């Protein structure tokens, strides 16, 4: 496997190990995760039928495929065009140089990495909350797009990504508290 991809995996695993080993982080993530699950369950359980049958929003399979393909294409586009010195881990700027990788635009290995990161963050970050918002308030498509844009802008920057998750958490809580009504008003 490409040494850069292996290293990327290593960084991710090390971060997970540290989260698992650190009592306060473990608690933070466990509570956040539990809260998110509870919020979603609460929303589904207490909402009317509209929430379970997607209300009046009945996307065709073609539309769903187009949306997913669009997000992946956007991630690939950004991955191909953006130097890794922008919007990603600051440490990459220094250590990838030591490793001899050219971090300029168009490098194949770095493009793969950035595309993977963007896709991952969009998928794990924006899509769940996007789905939840779509269930709760289909009219809020603009919010979904804004979240996806925020996830892309913050891809790779863990500190800001945590802030992004926190913003998602606030939205989940607002949904759970019924502040987004079925008619889309807040």
């Amino acid at each position, binding site marked *: 496997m490409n040494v850069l991809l292996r290293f990327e995996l290593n960084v991710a695993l090390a971060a997970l190990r540290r989260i698992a080993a650190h009592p306060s982080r473990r608690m933070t993530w466990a509570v956040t995760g539990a809260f998110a699950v509870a919020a979603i369950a609460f929303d589904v359980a207490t909402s009317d039928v509209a929430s379970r049958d997607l209300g009046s929003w009945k996307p065709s399979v073609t539309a769903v495929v187009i949306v997913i393909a669009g997000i992946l294409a956007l991630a690939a586009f950004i991955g191909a065009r953006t130097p890794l010195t922008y919007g990603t881990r600051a440490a990459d700027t220094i*250590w990838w140089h030591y490793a*001899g990788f050219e971090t300029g635009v168009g490098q194949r290995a770095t493009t793969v990495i950035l595309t993977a990161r963007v896709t991952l963050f969009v998928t794990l970050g924006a899509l769940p909350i996007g789905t939840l918002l779509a269930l709760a308030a289909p009219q809020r498509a603009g919010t979904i797009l804004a979240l996806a844009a925020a996830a892309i802008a913050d891809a790779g920057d863990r500190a800001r990504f945590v802030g992004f998750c926190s913003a998602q958490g606030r939205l989940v809580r607002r949904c759970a508290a019924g502040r987004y009504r079925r008619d889309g008003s807040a």
Partner: protein
Amino acid sequence: MEAETVLSVRGLVRRFGPVRAVAGIDLDVARGEVVALLGPNGAGKTTTLTCVAGLLAPSAGTISVAGDASRSARERRAAYVPEIPIVYDDLTPAEHLAFVAAARGFADRDGVVANALERTGLSELAARPAGTLSKGNRQRLCLAGALVARADVVLLDEPTTGLDPAAQHALVALVRGLAAGGAGVVVSTHALATAFDAADRIVVIVAGRIVLNEPVARFGDLEALRAAYMRVAA
């Protein structure tokens, strides 16, 4: 016999909009030489270093590392240690260096990593997450990265800022060690004492131009260096 020039900068200019941060710098650094870059805040020292490292594209001029003037050569052969040493908080020093060694394709990776850890005094901290290291030790880790990379040119930006005297002394020894290993080293600093102790040559930049470029031996003692600096930079 004259030492091989490992870094050659000619007519370097870098503009940020209407501002010329670097206004035409010519600089040669030989293999095994340590050059101290002095100058007031905003003089263009960091901009010069980041251009040399390939992190910033020059507006004009050429930069050759080991005879190769491409940006790609600068990215591969010049190692930049920023003022605030940046590391992967969750990786250990050994993991950082193992990555560099693997990417560089060394057969004896463990040996290369162990040697770099030992030379930088990080052997005992090899298994600790880098995020828990002090600033001085992070700096050493970055230098260890440059060692493993076998960089032809090592660029250090304000390396002694925030370090205690013992750590500063250790850093000077490390810089000398890098030069002894054959690298050309450029150190940007405000600390005249560090420059005097570590460098073979003093270069003073003011408003993006070199106003003094002399061997450190010319100054005799630190006071003479201080007087010369104040004359050109104040």
